[in-house]
């Protein structure tokens, strides 16, 4: 048996505007600069999912890639591709859609849906990594949010 990590990359394009209601308009402009321009802007995001597990000896395949791709497509890409993150993704109604927060929202949704899709197979969701551009890259590991009350859980499964 061998324990391997497997990384798989996906792409989605979305609009966002960095703005938090916790600060004044002037403070938002000062902190976020051009990311706070009133009509928003967009990125071609690259999403990397990392999973781990013991390699099944017969198949040599951690999970069928078609199943993993279908999972990410349904849980993330169908909700995040070609949308406006601020207005069409529930978590961002009161949360600034920085790519830091986006990474955690994406990870939270993946973690919530994981047991239903792949529970009992001995494969673990390890982390997500998001390239906002080729130069800005953010990473969060599963289980970062032992304090789950920080983001409202009911938003996680809300279809946008």
């Amino acid at each position, binding site marked *: 048996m*061998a*324990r391997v990590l497997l*990384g*798989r*990359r996906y792409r989605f394009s979305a609009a966002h505007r960095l703005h938090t209601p916790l600060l004044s308009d002037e403070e938002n402009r000062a902190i976020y600069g051009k990311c706070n321009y009133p009509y928003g802007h967009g990125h071609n995001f690259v999403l990397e999912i990392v999973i781990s597990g013991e*390699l099944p000896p017969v198949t*040599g395949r951690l999970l*069928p*890639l078609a199943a993993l791709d279908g999972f990410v497509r349904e849980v993330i890409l169908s909700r995040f591709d070609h949308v406006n993150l601020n207005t069409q993704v529930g978590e961002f109604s009161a949360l600034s859609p920085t790519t830091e927060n986006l990474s955690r929202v994406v990870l939270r949704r993946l973690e919530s849906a994981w047991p239903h899709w792949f529970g009992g197979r001995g494969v673990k969701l390890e982390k997500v990594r998001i390239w906002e551009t080729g130069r800005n890259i953010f990473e969060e590991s599963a289980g970062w949010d032992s304090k789950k009350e920080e983001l409202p859980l009911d938003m996680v499964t809300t279809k946008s």
Partner: protein
Amino acid sequence: MLLTRRIEFSASHRCVSGELSEAANHALYGAESNESGHGHNYALEVTLEGEPDPVTGMVVDLKEVKSVLERAVVAPMDHRHLNHEVEPFDRVVPTAENLAVEIYRRLAPEFAAGPARLRSVRLYETEDLWVEYEGR
């Protein structure tokens, strides 16, 4: 500290398990199971661990690392059909997972005597799929 050397090689393969039916193979491996095979430009990142020599400031001579990787990985695998020409893939499915494990097993003894030990290998089958193995 860690250092990583990257190399590329190109090879063909076909993913089918002799223990599964044709339908089960196709369901599991998709296009990777197509009968006539196909190929990839693989990229391999080999990460070594060691302490910099106090005089040279180097963990290991990268020229030597390069020649080990060329001898142990590129020479036997580049422009080969993995299933037909590279052990043990006549009987082990040459998935990216198994190929990463096999490459690790070939490289670990090469670095066992130091000065840098093999920490992990990360094999990119495409830029959107990689597998990493740390020998455990």
